[in-house]
């Protein structure tokens, strides 16, 4: 694991010692090289986990997420070049350092063997994210957004700390690998219910569960592009990852206690999708669509069948790439139109035909067009929830319908129609942007060819 972490740490001197004009190219190339080393982890020959050391391991659940994290850093760096154009060099460098420290924490979070280490790093990722949102966001509301982000996540996760300490006391170890072996069954009592709640809540806030999701649209909208990308692509998945890890010690409480949360998720999925139908703000629409997709992931994880775990893992990766791409597209619109309002950016297909293709591809993957990995994820989740209870098909089916509607509505509004009068002096799309989009799309297409790479440990 050090061969990923050490190069990531060495990115700091690369930034600070590189020539001012070279920082973008240097960091992008270097981080791409790092991400190529993680590709070795793709080859999971069996179900066992790769123990890299006593404190770091990776298995078929964490390594796709790890690769997603590492793959996203060069993309974030590429995406934020325009956003930082007018800043001084020192500030650019400190911004990059923030992104890199975030990546470092995330790598370690996904590979930690101990739950307590996982917890510490889980909290540590808050700091760089908070700085990115509140320092480099565009509007004054960013402070409010940062506050919401911090407090929601912290309030959710502090009970987890207590629960982890308690578990450490009773089990003697918080090692994820051994935890499954030595766990005692949770009896059905009030205190155990509270313990269950404490364990699950931190991740529910992070995912986010409907009702606890208010921080997410705010944070997504106010964050700079790199922040939105990493939030949508990786930080939300921390919740899913954590939940899949911790549910092993929560049996059999999950069976009874999951009901209200499942209901809330299914209901919230419809609610947030319908909110998307009425959004005028492009970034906010994408943010709400993330909430609705993540609700499916929560449903899948709480149902706890092998099929649903597979679906959850696949959907997390697929959504990570897709939503990040959508944010990039929204950002490239923003850089040209200088507004996030969808109605102001109509008819862009006439000006930027290649960008329209990217929009089309991103929307199609977002609405889960077969045979993309998004579909595989969603389909597995829908199958799992159907076998859990037949009635869920009404809600999940309705969600499919609304998802398709808002994705294509977004596409139609931004790309189709007549261009507005104020859209003159549009810059043509840069090679950097096209590269960025293709680097989002390429993994989606390649993974479609062999989806079992991201189907997780229950495959």
């Amino acid at each position, binding site marked *: 694991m050090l061969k990923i972490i050490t190069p990531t740490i060495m990115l700091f001197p690369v930034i600070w010692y590189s020539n001012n004009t070279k920082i973008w190219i240097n960091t992008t190339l270097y981080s791409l090289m790092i991400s190529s080393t993680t590709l070795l982890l793709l080859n999971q020959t069996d179900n066992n986990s790769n123990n890299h050391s006593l404190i770091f391991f990776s298995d078929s659940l964490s390594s796709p997420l790890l690769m997603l994290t590492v793959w996203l850093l060069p993309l974030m760096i590429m995406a934020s070049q325009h956003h930082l154009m007018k800043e001084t060099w020192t500030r650019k460098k400190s911004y990059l350092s923030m992104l890199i420290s975030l990546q470092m924490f995330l790598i370690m979070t996904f590979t930690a063997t101990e739950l307590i280490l996982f917890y510490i790093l889980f909290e540590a990722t808050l700091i760089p994210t908070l700085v990115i949102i509140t320092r480099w966001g565009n509007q004054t509301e960013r402070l409010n957004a940062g506050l919401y982000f911090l407090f929601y996540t912290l309030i959710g996760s502090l009970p987890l700390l207590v629960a982890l300490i308690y578990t450490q006391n009773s089990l003697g170890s918080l090692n994820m690998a051994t935890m499954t072996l030595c766990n005692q069954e949770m009896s059905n009592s009030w205190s155990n219910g509270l313990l269950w709640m404490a364990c699950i809540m931190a991740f529910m806030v992070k995912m986010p569960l409907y009702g606890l999701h208010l921080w997410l649209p705010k944070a997504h909208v106010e964050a700079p592009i790199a922040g939105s990308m990493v939030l949508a692509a990786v930080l939300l998945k921390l919740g899913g990852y954590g939940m899949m890890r911790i549910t092993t010690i929560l049996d059999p409480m999950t069976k009874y206690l999951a009901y209200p949360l499942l209901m809330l998720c299914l209901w919230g999925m419809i609610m947030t999708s319908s909110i998307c139908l009425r959004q005028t703000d492009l970034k906010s629409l994408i943010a709400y669509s993330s909430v609705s997709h993540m609700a499916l992931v929560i449903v899948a994880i709480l149902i706890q069948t092998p099929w649903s775990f597979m679906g959850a893992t696949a959907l997390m990766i697929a959504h990570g790439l897709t939503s990040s791409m959508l944010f990039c597209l929204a950002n490239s619109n923003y850089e040209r139109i200088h507004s996030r309002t969808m109605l102001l950016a109509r008819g862009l297909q006439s000006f930027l035909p290649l960008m329209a293709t990217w929009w089309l591809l991103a929307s199609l993957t977002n609405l889960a067009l077969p045979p993309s990995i998004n579909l595989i994820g969603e389909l597995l989740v829908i199958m799992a929830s159907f076998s859990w209870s037949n009635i869920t098909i009404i809600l999940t089916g309705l969600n499919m*319908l609304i998802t*398709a509607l808002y994705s294509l509505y977004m596409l139609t509004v931004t790309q189709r129609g007549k261009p507005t009068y104020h859209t003159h002096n549009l810059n043509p799309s840069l090679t950097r942007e096209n590269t960025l989009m293709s680097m989002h799309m390429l993994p989606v297409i390649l993974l479609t060819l062999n*989806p079992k790479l991201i189907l997780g440990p229950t495959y």
Partner: protein
Amino acid sequence: MNLMSSFTLITLIILTLPIMMNIMSSYKSTPYALHVKSTIACAFTTSLVPTTMFIFMGQETIISNWHWTTIQTLKLTLSFKLDYFSILFIPVALFVTWSIMEFSMWYMHSDPNINQFFKYLLMFLITMLILVTANNLFQLFIGWEGVGIMSFLLIGWWYGRTDANTAALQAILYNRIGDIGFVLAMAWFLMYSNSWDFQQMFILNYNSNFIPLMGLLLAATGKSAQFGLHPWLPSAMEGPTPVSALLHSSTMVVAGIFLLIRFYPLMENNTTIQTLTLCLGAITTLFTAICALTQNDIKKIVAFSTSSQLGLMMVTIGINQPHLAFLHICNHAFFKAMLFMCSGSIIHNLNDEQDIRKMGGLFKAMPFTSSSLIIGSLALTGMPFLTGFYSKDLIIEAANTSNTNAWALMITLVATSLTAVYSTRIIFYALMGQPRFTATSTINENNPLLINSIKRLVIGSIFAGFFLSNNILPTTTYQMTMPFHLKMMALMVTILGFTLAMELNTMTNNLKLKKSSYPFKFSTLLGFYPMVMHRSIPLSNLHMSQHTASLLLDLIWLEKIMPKNMSKMQMNTSIIISNQKGLIKFYFLSFLTSVLISFLFII
């Protein structure tokens, strides 16, 4: 033996070549459209080989599997099923597409993105063939969604027009409602037969369950524009005419019927679902025929007649004659695509005039198009020994002699006679009488691209039914004997329709209604369906999402309960428990007095 699968694969591979043409050098030298057209012609020729062998050898089915992925107990394969349905549909679809491609070379020649248009059409064709040849539900779903998305792109081809975009979105919306049913069926089959392979599903579900079949029926309703989910089909006429000819008459819209035909081993054991299918089809065929009666847009009339024919196919499935329905799909493809192309030729020649009231007398100006249009209309109405006759007559006969729902069969008959009425109406208004179009339009139909493409389909409309029904052994027994009046019924109602329509049309020229009657309003306003459904439901839904979901829940309640409430509570408690009340003067005064007093004491 193996030639069959290999030649079918060659057909499919040939079709994918032009998609990857950009990287080849010939992309720039030869016109792309021409290349695509000849590719399809080539693919058609190749596809004839397995079809001929199939007819000759009388095989049942050939399945080729390539492993894609195994998810737990479910094996997902890339598998192609070459049986009666797919192997016959491939050449038909390719033949029709070939003509349409040639036609669009003429129709779209001034479009700057003509290459992209051809690429889209080709991609649509590929997804359609995937749908047809699929041997498992997942692969079928790929094709199913693929044709849906390609129809979205093609309907919205002129993306500057708001109407086109709305129609595209509408098509997706209705199709997606159907997809819920598809996914439901997929989920059910996965649960109860642990497979998406057709054979396994059919073997394991003798006593077929109602739920998945209902899902499939819903899916077919969405895709094939049956009543309830039908409005997208007439709206889809916003797309270019070749798109209407290819997608919305001959290939994509029959996908729903095709799905039900694929599942006939399950459908035939479940009478409830058959009755439902029958009633749904009957309502659709009558309702859309009524809507077609008063339309003035030539493309809309043809679109509604497509919808009506789809209803007839649905009826056929409802009376448990899937093979007959399939025969009607194939026959229908020829003459309906041709009708669209004829109307495209008229529209293009009259400078984009679609209103039949502003046509008239085209028989003199465009003899070829007119005669093709008449042949197509006659084939559509089931004129003996034209293509439509071979399937339509059998369908009506089978319906007449079956002992199921007399009500549904009755309205099917009425719809059949209405087919003749609206066909007459097109012929009467567009072709006969005096010209009513502007004198400045330069009418010229003598373009080989136009003539050849329509000619090919005219030949198809005359002979295809004969060939198809003669060369293919029926797998279910048709009704052989019946009373004379039942035998003649289809013909009689059609002739009745023709004469009535002729009379009425001549009369309307000399007749003026003061006030439009209620049935007339019902028909012109499409049965008030779009008025009610397209306004009330989206309005209430969007209201719900704006007011309930977004404002009330997200922006007021959730915000109020948690963050705002928390901060307010903190503030209130801090105010209450703090003993600092902010009385600065008083504090200073007490400080001053105490200092003064202490001073006094010190002194």
